[in-house]
């Protein structure tokens, strides 16, 4: 899927998100730059607390960035306010991790899916009804059986289909999927991943796919970005990241995935310890406290993102597979 010739749809530049918790500051996202091309899926991976969800919400301006710009189709979203921002939002949609919590328990499915149309001023009831039926059918649900029911009557997988329907009804250009399958069972997870791929083709979507599971991200992404403690470690084409990871963190993340094959013994080099708190990130390279390759330079200097191979960038003083 060569999509990069279609131009950039979303560009995030030097994004910083910090917010206070009590009298301390959480450095959730620190100086992250990345871009997503039209028609592409960018996978964003990292462990909990690495700022990937915050980044997703900062793109949508649900949490206002502290600094930096978010340019969508040439327009800087961080400069927009009020009505202009609301109008913009229908072109960017969000799908959440917990499908049940993201549906209002007291509203009927028909109303929930029609809500985006009501908000954008589609006043014709029949037209709304028609479009709700079309999108519900597209996500694999029978409109006659679903529209008059309440969310609690559906399973997690079905609720996620409903959420996808709600996100797609306005035919957005960019959909940010925030861990859309991590709350689902394995057999249901595959259904939803296939559905997302199918919807991407049918609606010509661009996806920012946030997840903690590298295998899930690999299944859907053209390029992958790896985040650690608020910073971007590595970004590059999916195959390259998996076969030749340059950042030690990416490599360790890959090793830590349990493989469903008893002949593959669990990797011996699991990372030491746990991620530090984003309230007090280490100086220099933030991964240095767990990195087997760290030295004094890593503590003193923040490594800049630099090109390792075509399209693959890593922020590391001692990247893997590269002779220093």
């Amino acid at each position, binding site marked *: 899927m060569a999509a990069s010739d279609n131009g950039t749809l979303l560009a995030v530049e030097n994004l910083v998100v910090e917010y206070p918790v009590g009298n301390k500051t959480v450095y959730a996202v620190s100086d992250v730059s990345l871009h997503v091309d039209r028609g592409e899926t960018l996978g964003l991976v990292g462990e909990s607390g690495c700022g990937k969800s915050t980044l997703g919400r900062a793109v949508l301006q649900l949490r206002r960035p502290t600094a930096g710009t978010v340019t969508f189709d040439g327009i800087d979203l961080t400069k927009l306010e009020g009505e202009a921002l609301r109008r913009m939002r229908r072109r960017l949609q969000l799908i959440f991790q917990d499908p049940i919590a993201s*549906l209002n328990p007291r509203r009927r499915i028909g109303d929930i899916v029609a809500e985006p149309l009501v908000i954008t001023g589609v006043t014709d009831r029949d037209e709304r009804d028609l479009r709700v039926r079309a999108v519900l059918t597209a996500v694999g649900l029978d409109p006659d059986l679903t529209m008059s029911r309440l969310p609690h*009557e559906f399973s997690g997988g079905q609720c996620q289909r409903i959420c996808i329907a709600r996100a797609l009804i306005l035919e957005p250009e960019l959909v940010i999927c925030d861990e859309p399958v991590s709350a689902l069972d394995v057999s249901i997870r595959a259904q939803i991943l296939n559905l997302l791929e199918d919807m991407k083709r049918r609606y010509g979507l661009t996806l920012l796919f946030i997840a903690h599971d590298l295998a899930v991200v690999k299944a859907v992404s053209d390029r992958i970005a790896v985040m650690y403690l608020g910073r971007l470690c590595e970004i590059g084409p999916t195959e390259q990241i998996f076969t030749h990871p340059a950042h030690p963190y990416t490599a360790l993340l890959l090793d830590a995935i349990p493989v469903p094959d008893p002949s593959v013994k669990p990797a011996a080099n699991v990372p030491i310890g746990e991620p530090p708190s984003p309230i007090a990130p280490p100086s220099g390279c933030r991964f240095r406290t767990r990195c087997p390759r760290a030295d004094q330079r890593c503590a003193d200097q923040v490594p800049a993102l630099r090109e390792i191979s075509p399209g693959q960038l890593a922020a590391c003083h001692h990247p893997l597979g590269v002779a220093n």
Partner: protein
Amino acid sequence: MAVLEIDDDTALVAPVAKRRKLGGLFLCAVAWILLIGLAAVFAAFLPIASPTDMDMLGKRAPPSAAHWLGTDSLGRDMLSRLIYGARVSLTVGLLSSVIGVTVGGALGMLAGYFRGRLETFTVGGVDVLLAFPPLVFLLAVLAYLGQTVLNITLVIGVLSIPAFTRVARAVTLSLSEREFVVAARALGATHSRILLRELLPNVSLPLVAFFLLGVAVTIVVEGALSFLGLGVPPPAPSWGSMIAEGRESLDIAPWLAFLPAGTMFITVLAFNIVGDTLRALTDPRPGAL
């Protein structure tokens, strides 16, 4: 290769039995509230004696065909006084709780949704109102404005605002974190739309349940005020003042105090039962395992 799976069994999770077991106790409570309420509303049309007509020859008469529940120490018909007393008790109970639930509910929702300075201000105001000795406040206001049903209702209503604000704010706070609210924001919904369509339906049921408990509490408060002589001035009947009057003849005619006390007891209990049942039903999902 489209691997889209149209669920062949969109039969969903098996539907829950529609009728929820409400129980006989709940139905009795509703029936009692309806009975008292209707009697109070249509008191003027009921074939009962006037609540203020005195019969000096038939003082403290036991129940008879003419006076079903007997007469009080001034020979007034007890049944009639109970029914007219219900008017005062229910008016004060319902109206002041309505004031509390509307003002308090709105303040609480706004504070819980917008947070920030509005929340600090609201919570501060509520704390001040809670810290103020209620009886002193009541005495002061009633002394200046006069002991009318309207004034009593207003004062108790204002005093009940803090409790409703707290409930509404707590519920809204936890709901605002939920993803469906974030989803509505991401769709570009306006604040008023989120408050009215997403939050209000979820906040209202716990508030209604709390409202009914508030009515019960207010009826007792009104009774206590009347008992202390701060309620509706005589000769208009109210349950509290009837108890106070009956107290003087507890040894010779105990029913004069016990009848209004019992009526108040059952009414308050009924409101509590209905409120508790509704609160248990607050969750739209069927009861947990």
